[in-house]
């Protein structure tokens, strides 16, 4: 059955971002209609009008698990400081650790990621590292104290789906007992279903829903997809083969030629 995330069992395998929606009302409806159980959030400079407080109230009213991120951080120090601020503001030990290494692809800087993960884990954080599909990096993150790994499907916001399905499958095989989340790159429900069919434990996505023409409908579609993919994986699918294998029995067929 489903693995726990630092002891917490998720109600379903969809983690949904809260950015880029056409309006707060649509964001709220996307969560309510889909039933997503985890919301990713961030920290930004507070303005005079207290916009952050209004946003926080809406998230609190959704009654979901909150996963703050360190989006936009490029150094260990910056990420660690942001994590401390997030822990205080959101009152959670969970932190989605993002350490960006490349401007165009937003590829994680895995060297700094491992270092920051170690510092934060030692400080009592429960780290959800946004990483690549590299197995050795995954191993180092686990050694650093992470109990969850979140490899990218494709670059953030690209909607390309699972760029390296071979490596993701290898990751699943290498870390059978670790909760694995495909984080980023999902564009279509079929991408999300494919991740779950690999045996991943959850999918984290944002842009695919928030930027869809109908975000509420897409949120529901994504939930249906991750649940279908998970059921399919649990049902032990057949192996693919190159040639046909008749499904209709040959025995008893009438002789007609």
């Amino acid at each position, binding site marked *: 059955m489903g693995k726990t995330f630092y002891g917490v069992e998720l109600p379903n395998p969809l983690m949904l971002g809260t950015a880029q929606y056409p309006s707060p009302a649509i964001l709220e409806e996307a969560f309510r209609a889909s039933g997503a159980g985890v919301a990713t959030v961030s*920290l930004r*400079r*507070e303005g005079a009008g207290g916009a*952050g407080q209004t*946003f926080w109230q809406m998230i609190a009213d959704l009654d979901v698990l909150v996963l703050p991120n360190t*989006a936009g951080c490029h150094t260990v120090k910056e990420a660690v400081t942001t994590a401390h*601020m997030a822990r205080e*503001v959101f009152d959670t030990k969970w932190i989605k650790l993002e350490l960006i290494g490349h401007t165009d692809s937003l590829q994680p800087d895995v060297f700094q990621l491992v270092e920051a993960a170690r510092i934060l884990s030692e400080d009592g954080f429960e780290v959800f590292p946004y990483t690549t599909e590299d197995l050795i990096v995954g191993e180092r993150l686990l050694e650093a104290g992470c109990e969850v790994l979140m490899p990218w499907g494709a670059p953030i916001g690209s909607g390309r789906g699972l760029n390296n399905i071979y490596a993701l499958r290898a990751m699943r095989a290498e870390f059978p007992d670790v909760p694995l989340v495909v984080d980023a790159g999902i564009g279509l429900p079929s991408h999300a279903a494919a991740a779950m069919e690999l045996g991943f434990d959850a999918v984290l996505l944002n842009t695919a829903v928030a930027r869809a023409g109908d975000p509420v409908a897409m949120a529901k579609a994504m939930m249906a997809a991750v649940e279908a993919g998970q059921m399919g994986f649990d049902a032990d699918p057949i192996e693919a083969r190159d040639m046909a294998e008749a499904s209709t029995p040959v025995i008893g067929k009438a002789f007609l030629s």
Partner: protein
Amino acid sequence: MKIVLNGEAREVAATDLAGLLAECGFSGRVATSLNEEFVPAGLRAGQALADGDRVEVVAPMQGG
């Protein structure tokens, strides 16, 4: 004194971090840093400010 608050130069009367938040009207869920170091809420009252200090005040925001 002159400080930099969320990237903008400001002239303020407050002498510590807690006073600065009150003076500038921040309330609710915010976190603070002083010269790129996190300052927990419980330590803001005793955290003296000096000319040229850089203060960041952050709050919950949408994120992916």
